[in-house]
């Protein structure tokens, strides 16, 4: 059955491009954050929000590990400001109420994330207890911006043929479960990286998450022909395989580097890449989950009543 929904207006497409730009900035910020941890630079600038008592540090201070920590702060500032502008644009240009709420959440999310980062600097004794939520919120914030990019995309508004989410378990539930597992895996990975526990929980989590992603992607590829679902499924599948390979290499690089007097390559690049590919995997699963909720209706329900939240979104758009 065809649903005829009005195609997105110009401002929404413009917002979509803005969201993609912001997501790209966040990837850069994630790289910068991962480099701080991999280089053990987290405490190299002991004050916050200023750095050595200044907003812009002297060039003579921009040395050694300070380069990583200060760059992370600087890029975070750019992301924070860009998120503020993006939230303002959504607030004034997007007619959907729930989008406005998500924009406010994104803004307060980035503010909270900056504050947690500051507390991490000011309370070094609670490094792991603060750094792990900091890592989790960073990737969740990235996922939220990716979600906003999906909600503002042309595909979200386009006409589509709604399909039944047939089979047990349903794709929607499976995808949601996989995202939950990915978030737990993020915590296990961040805990290992920040010295809260060993690698074993993260390895067990990796097996579980890989199995779930392979299962979810297989369900998509077997049951559905829609390219809007197949593309993120293929992406998640590809990324999880890259991620497993990076994880194995990063672990052995870390073992080999155990006696080194300082963090060195290839350990730094491998561990930082592992963090970023993990975030991209989460993003691919978020896209897949949102599209599955957008395109599929639960079995047994009438198609037009299939997704109340989406129906509401259409009403707001039309």
């Amino acid at each position, binding site marked *: 059955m065809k649903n005829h929904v009005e195609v997105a207006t110009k401002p929404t497409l413009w917002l979509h491009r803005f969201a993609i730009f912001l997501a790209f900035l966040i990837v850069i910020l994630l790289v910068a954050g991962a480099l701080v941890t991999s*280089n*053990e*630079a*987290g*405490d*190299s*600038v*002991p004050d916050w929000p200023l750095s*050595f008592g200044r907003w812009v540090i002297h060039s003579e*201070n921009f*040395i*050694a*590990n*300070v*380069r990583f920590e200060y760059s992370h702060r600087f890029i975070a500032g750019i992301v924070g400001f860009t998120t503020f502008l993006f939230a303002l644009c959504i607030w004034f240009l997007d007619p959907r109420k*729930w989008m406005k709420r*998500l924009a406010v959440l994104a803004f307060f999310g980035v503010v909270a994330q900056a504050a947690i980062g500051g507390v991490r600097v000011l309370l*070094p*004794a609670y490094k*792991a*207890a603060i750094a*792990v*939520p900091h890592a*989790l*919120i960073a990737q*969740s914030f990235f996922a939220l911006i990716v*979600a906003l990019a999906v909600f503002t995309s042309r595909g979200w508004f386009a006409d589509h043929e709604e399909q039944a989410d047939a089979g047990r378990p349903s794709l*929607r539930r499976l995808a*949601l479960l996989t*995202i*939950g597992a990915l*978030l*737990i895996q*993020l*915590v296990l990975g*961040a*805990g*290992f990286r920040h*010295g*809260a*526990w*060993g*690698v*074993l929980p993260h*390895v067990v989590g990796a097996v579980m998450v890989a199995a779930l992603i392979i299962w979810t992607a297989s369900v998509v590829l077997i049951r559905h022909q829609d390219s809007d679902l197949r593309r993120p499924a293929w992406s998640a599948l590809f990324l999880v395989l890259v991620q497993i390979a990076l994880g194995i290499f990063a*672990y*052995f690089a*870390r*073992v080999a580097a*155990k*006696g*080194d*007097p*300082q*963090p*060195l390559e290839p350990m730094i690049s491998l561990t930082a890449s592992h963090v970023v590919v993990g975030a991209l995997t989460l993003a691919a699963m978020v896209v897949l*989950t*949102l599209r599955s*909720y957008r395109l599929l209706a639960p079995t047994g329900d009438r198609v037009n009543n299939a997704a109340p*939240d989406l129906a509401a979104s259409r009403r707001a758009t039309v």
Partner: protein
Amino acid sequence: MIRKLGLILLVVIVAAFMMVSCKPRKKGSGDDDEGTPKKAKYVSKADEGTISGVIKFDGTPPERKKIDMSQDANCVTSAGDKLSDDVLVDAGKLQNVFVYVTGGPADKFDFGTPTDAVVLDQSGCRYEPRVLGLQAGQTLKVMNSDKTTHNVHPSPSKNPEWNQVMTQNAAPLEKKFTKPETLIPVKCNQHPWMTAHIGVLAHPFFAVSGKDGSYSIKGLPPGEYTLIAYHETLGEKRQKLTVGAKESKTQDFSFSPKVAFIPTSLEVEPALVLP
């Protein structure tokens, strides 16, 4: 669906915070003074003894690894050999082993707190000395002789943690650790190869092995002790011994190269393993 995702995220954040916060802290062998009643002041009977010895290294010492100091031109010009110094062996003798006693009269009496400060300098982008000891409540004077900025960041488990910047020509920092703790790692997070270890004890019976591997602990009241020799990467050795009145006891220790790490358990323990 967004509410479901939000709920999942909230649960994971709370669980993560609780899991990480509930992690028990590690404790060293010299850290047992907390909560004990006030000790009697030690009165010398002029019968104190001495423990001395040599710390040996059996086998081939590990190759000293090159340090990449290129991130800071000041370090490149001021540093010496630019090689790792965690395991320093000279003619089969091991340097920088922290040797101390526990038990016996060392834990029973109050030996007072020295008024002179123990100096930790930052020179050539290294900590000098790399291993040092002081008494709880004694002043630690941290200096920066380098023409670059450092940050001094001890990570104790029982004493308050602090992290302070020291620019070149900065006035010395004066700090105290009030609780016994062996050993407190100190790092400069700007120059990650810079590491020191500080042993904080309730008594003055400790020493650090010199270049020739020798150490000497003087003024020990007669009694039964456990002598501990701790090396930051090679681990620790223990020996029970009795020191008689005015006795000079000799106790050597031998350390071996660490067995290559085989990741059978898939566990990398990132934290320092304390004695």
